[in-house]
């Protein structure tokens, strides 16, 4: 009689033997790439052995004791799971799901539009070929060829785009129909099955970022739902997952997770400031991807809402008060994650006092009215004013003395498309670290360190020398600065004046006004700094009414958008688009001091802050023709806030200068 121990020993031996099987099989086959096949054989062998031995035996000794009570259920589950995994990999849908999932994660990190488009094309092709079983493949191929030939242009007008794809569809249907007749695989009319390819094309465009782009086409307000679908839904992985043909434990479980994920994302959404991009140039695929990336950049990345949901679910069980319940927890986690992402992006290191200050500032910003004025990048200005200092540490000398006369080269680039007259001052410094004393720097004597510049482009290399007869020796921080005085950046905002109307009249005009004034925030080119401002009854209201109980405000702040510092604000003022100042019919005054807010000069900017609020003012009067309008009419006006400031670019790098060793 075989004892229980002997039996278990036999089982263990079998298990050990079986565990070695894949390697042996691979060795025999002499190809590590056939491991998958070996794995499959191994699992099949496991299943066979398990069935052969009956339910009281277990091929997984570790499960033996607890599976006994459940009648071997867990053992069957593990076997089924293992078998399921092998079977899933063979399914093209599942394989593509895995591949596209990885690609999605990598693209989120890398953010390369070329790769995004290329992978999208590949997935679209394989979707039609493997998933739709070559239905629609001809249309997809034609679309890819057309797309490449056209330079990836997607028309501005949806109808024009549909009409462009229509000939491709008809041609593809004809080709398929002829192919069916020639190969006797069906009738000519069955070529209409090619229209299935439209699904692949639609997924391709949506994954690229068509939803983001449709916000411009249809001027859709960016609801949390749309934001979630732009940022958090991985289209191709989900499509491949749900198109997996096989049904087994692994795939069904993944599908279940996929559904749960979508439900959480779409139900919860993201903490919004909803707005649209007013990009209106003819787009190509790159532009669509860019629109998605721009929107993603504008959307605070923060924590994945699904993660917040799960973490808060466990942490708030049983708590019902509004401050500590599930909703409050999720909202706080989302807000804190957005503040955290912002501060990290601004260059603060986590768990430092400066980081904590940044977080506090963002929390304060949430509540501070003046700071809350927000602005967006004006997408119609493709060439902003910009400057940067670049250097290559490999070009820096490692030893130095005054007989060496080797300078530290760096390049200053300035883009000045509007030909502003700027005073540029370039400087450098050797700041000693540790016990090394600091040394002042100077530029090459032949180079002017301060000059007036009004050209469109400057690209100049400078050489920094220590302004001392003593040789440099030790560790320094080489600081390179360029100060640009007199930079002007203008922000614009559009509002609809409706006069004094009834609620019904106002509501009747609302759809038109929302179309005519799609963007409620101020817009400015992506330059060093800008004024964010709003004019009206509230930050999100684009309508200004003439009613005695409705206060019209002017709320603004100055935001440092670059990596340098705003040294001084020379001037800010309000004007119209053509540059004319607001005349006396516009009375905008500060609430307390009653001073005019239309203009201010020589303000100091606290460089420790990224955002500096300006005086909050009220509009006590404006022209009569904007107050008295017919019941069905409204007037549009665009206001410009002009900011003139001095900006300091400052880059630094550690250098280590070794002493000169004389022979």
């Amino acid at each position, binding site marked *: 009689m075989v004892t229980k121990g002997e039996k278990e020993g036999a089982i263990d031996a079998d298990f050990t033997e079986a565990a070695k099987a894949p390697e042996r099989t691979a060795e025999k086959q002499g190809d590590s790439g056939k491991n998958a096949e070996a794995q499959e054989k191994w699992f099949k062998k496991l299943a066979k052995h398990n069935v052969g031995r009956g339910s009281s035996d277990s091929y997984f000794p570790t499960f033996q004791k607890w599976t006994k009570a459940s009648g071997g259920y867990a053992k069957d589950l593990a076997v089924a799971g293992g078998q399921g995994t092998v079977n899933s990999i063979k399914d093209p849908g599942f394989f593509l799901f895995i591949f596209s999932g990885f690609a999605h994660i990598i693209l989120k990190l890398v953010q390369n539009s070329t790769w995004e488009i290329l992978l999208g094309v590949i997935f679209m092709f394989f979707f039609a070929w493997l998933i739709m079983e070559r239905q629609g493949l001809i249309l997809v191929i034609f679309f890819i060829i057309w797309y490449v030939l056209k330079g990836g242009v997607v028309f501005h007008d949806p109808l024009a785009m549909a009409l462009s794809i229509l000939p491709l569809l008809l041609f593809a249907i004809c080709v398929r129909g002829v192919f069916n007749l020639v190969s006797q695989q069906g009738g000519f009319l069955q070529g209409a099955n090619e229209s299935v390819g439209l699904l692949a094309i639609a997924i391709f465009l949506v994954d690229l970022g068509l939803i983001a782009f449709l916000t411009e086409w249809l*001027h859709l307000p960016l609801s949390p739902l749309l934001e979630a679908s732009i940022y958090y839904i991985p289209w191709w992985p989900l499509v491949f997952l749900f198109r997996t043909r096989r049904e087994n434990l692994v795939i069904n479980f993944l599908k279940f997770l996929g559904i749960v994920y979508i439900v959480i994302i779409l139900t919860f959404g993201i903490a919004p400031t909803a707005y649209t991009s*007013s990009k*209106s*140039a003819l787009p190509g695929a790159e532009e669509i991807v860019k629109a998605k990336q721009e929107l993603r950049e504008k959307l605070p990345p923060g924590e994945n809402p699904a993660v917040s949901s799960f973490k808060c679910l466990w942490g708030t069980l049983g708590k019902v008060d509004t401050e500590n319940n599930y909703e409050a927890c999720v909202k706080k986690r989302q807000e804190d994650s957005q503040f955290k992402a912002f501060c990290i992006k601004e260059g603060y290191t986590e768990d430092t006092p400066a980081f904590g200050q940044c977080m506090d500032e963002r929390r304060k910003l949430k509540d501070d009215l003046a700071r809350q004025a927000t602005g967006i990048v*004006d997408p*119609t*200005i*493709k*060439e902003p004013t910009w400057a940067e200092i670049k250097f290559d540490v490999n070009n820096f000398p490692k030893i130095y003395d005054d007989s060496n006369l080797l300078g530290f080269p760096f390049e200053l680039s300035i883009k000045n*498309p*509007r030909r502003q007259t700027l005073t540029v001052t370039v400087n450098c410094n050797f700041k000693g670290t540790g016990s090394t004393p600091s040394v002042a720097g100077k530029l090459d004597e032949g180079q002017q360190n301060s000059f007036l510049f009004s050209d469109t482009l400057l690209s100049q290399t400078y050489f920094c020398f220590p302004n001392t007869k003593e040789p440099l020796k030790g560790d320094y921080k080489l600081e390179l600065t360029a100060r640009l005085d007199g930079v002007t950046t*203008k922000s*614009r905002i*559009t509002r609809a004046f409706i006069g004094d109307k009834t609620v*019904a009249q106002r509501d*009747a005009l609302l759809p*038109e*006004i929302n*179309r*005519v004034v*799609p963007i409620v925030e101020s817009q400015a*080119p992506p330059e060093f700094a800008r004024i964010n401002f709003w004019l009206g009854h509230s930050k999100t209201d684009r309508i200004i009414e003439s009613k005695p109980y409705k206060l019209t405000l002017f709320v603004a702040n100055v935001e440092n958008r670059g990596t340098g510092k705003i040294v001084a604000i020379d001037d800010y003022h309000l004007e*119209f*688009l*053509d540059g004319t100042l607001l005349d006396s019919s516009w009375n905008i005054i500060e609430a307390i001091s009653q001073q005019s807010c239309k203009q201010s000069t020589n303000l100091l900017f606290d460089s420790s802050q990224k955002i500096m609020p300006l005086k909050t003012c009220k509009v006590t009067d404006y022209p009569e023709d904007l107050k008295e309008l017919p019941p069905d*009419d*409204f*007037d*549009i*006006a*665009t206001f*410009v806030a002009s900011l003139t400031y001095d900006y300091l670019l400052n880059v630094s790098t550690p250098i280590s200068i070794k002493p000169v060793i004389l022979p």
Partner: protein
Amino acid sequence: MKKILLLVLVLIVVVSCGQTPEKKGQFNFKQGTAEVNMRLLDGNPPEKIYPNSQFGLIVELDNQAAYDIINGKIQLVGLDKSFFEVESEEENVDLLLGKNILTPGGEKKFFEFRGQAKSLFQNAEEYRGIYFLKLRYNTALDFVDTICINPSPYGFYDAGCTVNPRKTYSGQGGPFAVTELEEIVIPPNEIEFRIHLRNRGRGQADFLILETAWLGDEPLANCGFLEGKGISRALDLTAEQQEATVICRHTLQETKSYTTSFVARFQYRYEIKQEHSLRLVK
């Protein structure tokens, strides 16, 4: 093959015999749904407008309805004067004839708006300004039908006409239409008519007025809108409410069934609106 040829021949004969030649001058334009078509002429405005240049906007109005439009006005609404300035933002359309015997194709007119483009904002590449083209006008609706009235519906068999208590209609040649007429006899000698009207066009009606209503040669004095306050022959419509019901009550003199004409004439104000855009490029 022979069977197919025979079938085709039979079809041709049937179709030909089914057609009655159209008698000139007797086509009834006041049926179905038709309205004023408004469009911008191609190239006016141009697809791209350059800064500090002039442009024109030509609106074509083509009245395909069976009624004239009067007291009309075309408006350009929503243009930002910072970018585009138009000399006059509205034009009057005093009269535009509808389809009738004299103008079977309706009347077409063109209206031009002259504009001046201003500069782009700083060194922007382009600006797209959305605006609305609105046409508002007064027009009419004539509803005529022959109906059967039986003052004694519960009486003995009447060899007269057969009452159709509810009749539906496809329209009277305009955007607003009478869609249904109900007849309800209230013994001993009263009859109630319920006229249902609906907006079938692409625009929106502002208000509706029942001008006249006749039953044969007798005026229907006791008529009013169900949605109105009291017995009112005028009704203001909203965007959400583009339907109306008129109730008319009348005392019948006859005791036996008879056919007669039912005539109602309405006036209403209609608005059509289209969204367009102007593109200012560098």
